């Protein structure tokens, strides 16, 4: 019998002790138009997360059963690189990534003026190159920028951010360690102009008061991130 003992694992060690306030986001960087072949693209770094998004379309939908006579539909694929996490992830979709793909498409849908492109499809490919907690929110935020970069008409740019509970305290934007050790994680996506919520999940235990606080905090975070999204587009296309 062979046992494997691991010494000194501080892989990905990062916590609120690193100095972040309860309502403070990790470092955020967004760049629009980073790929040649895609119609629109964006690269996002959010703490230790590195996410690349490409958008293709609107184009003719070859899958007949998804085709809508009066509007386009959004097909989203969220995928993690095998080297993006501590233990190599086997390539290909799993249950988690299929769920995230679905809710991401649904989170973005309300912003896109789909009626303009009947019988078409807009494809969104989200690649997580490195994951450090909050990748679904990072993916949605980057996907909005990529959609705008592709010139797809939208009512607003969806933005996402999570809040949660760690050590009994409600905090903004959980890191990987906080997500694992924390008591709750609430990812939220909003349309910043109207404040409407397009994605809401919750995983963990919260009282009603705590939930409300988390939701408020997440919306506050979203509004901050929204400014960075706009800056990225201004930087690419000028004022």
């Amino acid at each position, binding site marked *: 019998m062979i046992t494997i003992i691991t010494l000194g694992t501080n892989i990905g060690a990062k916590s609120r002790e690193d100095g972040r306030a309860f309502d403070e986001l990790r470092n955020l960087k967004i760049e629009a138009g980073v790929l040649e072949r895609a119609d629109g693209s964006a690269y996002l770094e959010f703490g230790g997360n590195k996410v690349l998004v490409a958008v293709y379309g609107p184009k003719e939908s070859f899958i007949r059963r998804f085709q809508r006579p009066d509007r386009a539909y959004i097909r989203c694929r969220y995928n993690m690189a095998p*080297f993006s996490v501590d233990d190599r992830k086997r390539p290909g979709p799993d249950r988690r990534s299929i769920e995230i793909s679905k809710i991401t498409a649904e989170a973005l849908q309300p912003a896109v003026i789909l009626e303009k492109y009947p019988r078409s499809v807009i494809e969104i490919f989200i690649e997580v190159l490195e994951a450090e907690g909050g990748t679904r929110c990072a993916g949605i935020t980057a996907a909005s920028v990529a959609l705008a970069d592709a010139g797809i008409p939208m009512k607003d740019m969806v933005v996402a951010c999570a809040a949660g509970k760690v050590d009994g305290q409600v905090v903004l934007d959980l890191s990987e360690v906080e997500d694992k050790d924390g008591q709750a994680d609430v990812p939220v996506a909003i349309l910043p102009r109207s404040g409407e919520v397009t994605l809401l999940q919750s995983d963990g235990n919260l009282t009603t008061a705590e939930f409300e606080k988390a939701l408020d905090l997440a919306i506050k975070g979203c509004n901050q991130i929204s400014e960075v999204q706009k800056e990225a587009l201004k930087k690419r296309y000028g004022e």
Partner: protein
Amino acid sequence: MVNKMNIVPEITRKSITHLINNEERVDGRAMDEYREISLETGVISKAGGSARVKIGNTQIMVGTKPQIGEPFPDTPDVGVLMTNSELLPMASPSFEPGPPDERSVELSRVADRCIRESQMVDLDKLCIIPGKKVWMVFIDLHILDYDGNLMDAAVLGAVAALKNTMIPEVKVVDNEIIIDHENMKPLPIREEVVMCTFAKIGEQLVIDPSFDEEEILSARLSIGITASDKICAMQKGGDSPLTKEEIMNAVKITESKSKELMKYLEC
């Protein structure tokens, strides 16, 4: 599958071929000139080693993951090297999601052959307990943007990522494997390898074909060569044959061009 949507207009085909027959290329390059190459290493901290390589607009992210696993029964005392590639649908409208297609499998197999046969990684040193536990090094090629010549970019990125890879020190005490993450060491690397790919268009061989050139090539030849000029892998592709003279000519160009590519790996 290779998409049928890629129909190249006859006028494009003719103009590219015509230019090349006059020793000119659409982007103004010489017949034996690479596009601009950039190589960054250590870009993914969760990977054992990583590299982002760009040749022109072609862009590949390579990450390695060393893991402890069981050796193959026929080679019980050497480490395992596995290369896998994903032609992500984000990279091109003709790439579809799903299990690897024949192009993806060819790419990872050729890159794998190049690295394996060059004996670049000293796999003997990756054995922990013969027949039971060895290091398995996974190389994952993540194709982000496809503008031709994936082979050369894949090998360049994979070699850079392997050189960037750190594995923890391992001790075996009474059937216990102790992995010491405090003491990391680089993978045992012997000598580097690079790959040069040629496309036959019209009557000419051009190096580093772009997307448009790849679409119309009649034959393709990829040659892997080590720092000490040993040819360690080759792959011919495309529908047309090549003459012996053309092949030897490509080998000769590879010998000199490989030196140029090796420079990117020095840092």
